[in-house]
C-alpha cells in the first residue's frame, strides 16, 4: 500500500463526470438539506423556542451541515462507488492502466470527502444567508467537514467491499447511519440522553464532528479539538485500510 499521488487521477475522473451534470448536482446539494433546515427549523423551532441562549434554527443548522457531509459521503462511497466497481467496471478499466487498488480506493474516498464538503458547504452558505452563522470563523468548519466526509466515505467503502448488491447498503443505513444521526446532537442536545447513550454516541464519529462545527458556527471556540479530530481520524484511517484490503481481495484474485 505504497502512498502515491496517483489517486488524483481517480478523483479527477469523478470530478469530470460531476462537472457534466453540474446543475442538477448543485441543486441536489442545496435542495434536500435546505428543506430539512427550513421544515425542522420552523416546525420544531416554534415548539422548542430557544435552546439555552441559542435559537433552535441556529442549533439545528450546524447539526444539519455535519449530517449532510456524512450522508453525501456515505452515498458516494456506497451507491456510486459500487456502480463504478460492479455495474460500469470503471475500476477494472483503471486496473488495466498503471493504477492500483490502493490508488482507486483512496481516490474514491477523497472524492466522497469532496462531495461531502460541497454539500455541507452549500448549506453553510444558505445558513449564512439566513443569518444563522455568527462570524467568519465558520470557515474553519470547512476542513472539519472535509475530514468528516473522508471518514464516512472510507467507512462506506468498507461496506461496499463486502456488498453483493445495492440492497446490502440498507443494513448500514439502518444500523449505523440513522442511529448516529439521531444520537449525535444533530437535532437535539446530547445531554438529553442517559449517560450510557451519551458514551455510545461519543464512541462514534458524527458526535465529534458536531462538537467541533457547532461552536465554530455560533461564535464560540471548540474544546478538546485534538480528541474530537482523533476519533474522526481513527475511523477514517481504519476504514480506508480495511476497505483497501478487502476491495483488493475482491478485485485482485
Amino acid at each position, binding site marked *: 500500500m505504497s502512498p502515491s499521488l*496517483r489517486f488524483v*487521477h481517480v478523483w*479527477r*475522473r469523478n470530478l*469530470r*463526470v460531476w462537472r*457534466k451534470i453540474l446543475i442538477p448536482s448543485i441543486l441536489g446539494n442545496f435542495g434536500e438539506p435546505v428543506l430539512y433546515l427550513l421544515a425542522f427549523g420552523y416546525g420544531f423551532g416554534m415548539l422548542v423556542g430557544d435552546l439555552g441562549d441559542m435559537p433552535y434554527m441556529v442549533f439545528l443548522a450546524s447539526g444539519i451541515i455535519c449530517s449532510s457531509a456524512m450522508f453525501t459521503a456515505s452515498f458516494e462511497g456506497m451507491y456510486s462507488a459500487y456502480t463504478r466497481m460492479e455495474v*460500469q*467496471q*470503471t475500476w*477494472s*478499466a*483503471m*486496473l*488495466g*492502466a*498503471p*493504477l*492500483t487498488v490502493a490508488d482507486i480506493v483512496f481516490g474514491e474516498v477523497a472524492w466522497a470527502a469532496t462531495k461531502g464538503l460541497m454539500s455541507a458547504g452549500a448549506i453553510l452558505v444558505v445558513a449564512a444567508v439566513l443569518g444563522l452563522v455568527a462570524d467568519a470563523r465558520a470557515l474553519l468548519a470547512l476542513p472539519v467537514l472535509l475530514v468528516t466526509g473522508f471518514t464516512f466515505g472510507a467507512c462506506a467503502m468498507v461496506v461496499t467491499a463486502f456488498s453483493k448488491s445495492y440492497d446490502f447498503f440498507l443494513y448500514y443505513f439502518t444500523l449505523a447511519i440513522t442511529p448516529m444521526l439521531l444520537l449525535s446532537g444533530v437535532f437535539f442536545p446530547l445531554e438529553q440522553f442517559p449517560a450510557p447513550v451519551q458514551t455510545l454516541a461519543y464512541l462514534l464519529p458524527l458526535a465529534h464532528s458536531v462538537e467541533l462545527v457547532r461552536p465554530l458556527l455560533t461564535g464560540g471556540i471548540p474544546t478538546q479539538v485534538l480528541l474530537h479530530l482523533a476519533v474522526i481520524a481513527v475511523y477514517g484511517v481504519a476504514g480506508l485500510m480495511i476497505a483497501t484490503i478487502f476491495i483488493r481481495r475482491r*478485485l*485482485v*484474485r
Partner: protein
Amino acid sequence: MTRDLRAFQTQSRPGTMTRFGQPLARQMPESQPIPVTPLVSARGLIKQYDGRLVVDHVNLDVMPGECFGLLGPNGAGKTTTLRMLLGLTPPDGGELTVLGEPIPARAREARTRIGVVPQFDNLDPDFTVRENLTTYASYFGLRGETLSRRVEELIEFANLRGRESVPIQALSGGMKRRLTLARALINAPELVVLDEPTTGLDPQARHHIWQRLRMLLSRGTTLIITTHYMEEAERLCDRLAIIDQGRVVACDTPRALIRAHIEPHVLELSGHAATVWLDAQGNVSDIARLHRVGDASLLYSHDPRPLLDRLDSDGLRYLHRPANLEDVFLKLTGHDLRD
C-alpha cells in the same frame, strides 16, 4: 479431384510464413545473430481456486514483435493466465517476467508499457468517445500536446472520426470494440494483451479488428491474444499455445501444429447415408483415421484418393478440405462439450 486440390491450395496462406519471419529478422539481422530475450517469460506458473488447479505449471515465452495466441476451450485458464501477466491475479507459484519486470511485484510499472483489451468492454459510460480516450490517458499521466495528438491519432485509428462527441451507449458493438482497442494504445504500448477481441462481432467488424491488429504487428508491437476462434488464431498468430485444463498441451506455429498432429487431408461426411456407407466400407484404418462425432464423421488421411474415388462413384456428398487448426484443437482437447 482437381477441383479439390485447387481448394486445398487456395486455402493455404503464404502470408503467415513470411510475416512470422519478420519480427525475428528485425531483432536479429542476418549478419550478427543476437539471442532474443522473450518479452514475456513464464516458468511453472500455477493458480488454484478452491484447491482446483486452473493454471497448471504453464511455461510460456513470447518473443518481441510476434503475435502469440492462447487457444483453449472455455474454462481452460486463458483469461486467468492473461490476468496473471498483468499482475491482476497473483500466481500461487512459478516465475513470471513481463517486459523485464518481475510480476506481480512490479506489475504497475509493467502496465505503463502494456495495452489491455479486456474480454468484456469496460468503456466509461459516463463519457463520450473522446472523453474516454482523454480520461484513460490521464490514468497514465499523459497530458498536454502529447495527449491531444495521440487522442486524435487514435480516433482515426478506430475509424470514429465524426463520432468523437457521441456517448458510449450510442456506439455499435464493433465501434465499442474498436474504441477499446484504441484506448489500449493510448500509452503507445510495447505489448498489447487482448482477451477474445472479436467475440460477438459480425464478420465486417471482425475483419476490421484483424486489419488493425495486423497494422500493429507491422509496427513491431507484440500481441498476446486469447481466442477460441480457430480461423482468427490461424490468421493472426505467429505462434500459439493450445491450453486445456490449465496446461499447455502444444505450442508452435499454426502450420507446424497442423503438420505435427493432423494428416493433411480431411474428408467430412454427415447424415444417415454417410453412416451407412462408412459401415459398409469395413475397416478403413489403413487409408484414413476415422473420427465420429454424432452423425458426422471425419476422415483424416495422407492420401485420400482411394476414398475419394469410392465416394464419387457411390455419389455421396462430402467435403474435402485441408487439415486446419480446428482439427488440431479438437484432437488435443477432445470433442466433448465444455461448460
